């Protein structure tokens, strides 16, 4: 399974979902399928996409939130899994695309290449629903089930270590940030700031 195929397969179901991605290949590939105002790409601050997703999910429990994370980023913030598990927002799905490498900097293997199991780590941290999937069919089924589950889910998708040719896209970082904030404001009735 490639990450691009996985993203394409679920893209139609992301219409009304608040999406936060990590930097690099995930951000570039999702934008190549088609940017939407409800997508935010955290183009640095590695490890914090899941923390941002938690902040949004706690602030707006009525909105469905999906984080597209990666093995390298999660490994930088393993403690964050315990925080996610502690507050376990029901409206958050945490997808980790695990290609077992730091692809964008030359493909150096991460610890998942030598056996570290992120779904098991998430489960041991206390995340109530976890799964590891290896095929596109499994991924789509598990993602749809997670969306319906109404319980914090960590879904590890094992993907090929391939990515886009380039990572810089036409969308400015701040353009994305303010557009995303405006999207959330317009969807929220009780906006306080």
């Amino acid at each position, binding site marked *: 399974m490639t990450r691009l195929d996985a993203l394409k397969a679920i893209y139609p179901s992301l219409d009304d979902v*608040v999406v*936060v991605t990590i930097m690099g290949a995930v951000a570039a590939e999702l934008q190549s399928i088609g940017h939407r105002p409800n997508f*935010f790409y*955290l*183009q*640095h*601050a*590695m*490890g*914090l*996409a*899941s*923390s*941002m*997703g*938690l*902040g*949004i*999910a*706690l*602030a*707006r429990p009525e*909105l469905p939130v999906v984080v597209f994370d990666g093995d390298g980023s999660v490994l930088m*913030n393993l*403690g*964050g899994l*315990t*925080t996610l598990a*502690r*507050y376990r927002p029901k409206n958050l799905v945490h997808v980790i695309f695990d290609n077992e490498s730091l692809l964008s900097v030359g493909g150096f293997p991460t610890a998942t290449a030598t056996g570290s199991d992120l779904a098991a780590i998430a489960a041991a941290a206390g995340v109530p629903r976890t799964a590891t999937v290896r095929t596109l069919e499994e991924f789509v089924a598990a993602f749809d089930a997670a969306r319906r589950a109404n319980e914090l889910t960590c879904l590890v998708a094992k993907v090929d270590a391939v990515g886009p040719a380039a990572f810089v896209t036409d969308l400015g*970082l*701040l353009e994305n*940030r303010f557009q*995303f*904030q405006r999207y*959330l*404001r317009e969807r*929220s009735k*009780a*906006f*306080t*700031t």
Partner: protein
Amino acid sequence: MSPVSRTNSQLVYDALKASGVRLISALPETWLVHLVRLADDDPDMTLVRLAKEEEGVGISAGAHLAGVRSAMLMQNHGLLASINGIVSGAQLYRIPLLMIISHRGSFGERDPWQTEGGAVTEDLLRALRIPCAVLDSPAHIAPRIGKAQTLAYASNKPVALLLDRDLMWEDPT
């Protein structure tokens, strides 16, 4: 009895509430015990207990974009542990971020392990160009927290308030 000031902790907490803060992320330390407890006991406050302080930058960024005002409560060593998130998250993406930082390792510090962090905190904030003020007297608490929040929102940037020993610690030294 802990010598941490209950009275001044309450004043800080009340000022945070008055400035619109509804979500607090925190990693406890001695000086922050009352503040964390106040947040935990307040049904109108969402308290997020962290494993490491840098998570709080991401949580605050998410909360801000989703329309909820937040603050981080941490020790100055937590600030040191959060630098990348502050620079490549909050500053890169222009996030107003109110950081309430206990300034350990300043004059009067008795714990040897706190002393290096105390010596670099203010220079570090200056190097990061993060506007900063010290809270060392009860009279300053409410106006400075209010003004810090105002600047954070006007500039869309992080601001810091350092909780001084004279404010937080009642044991005569």
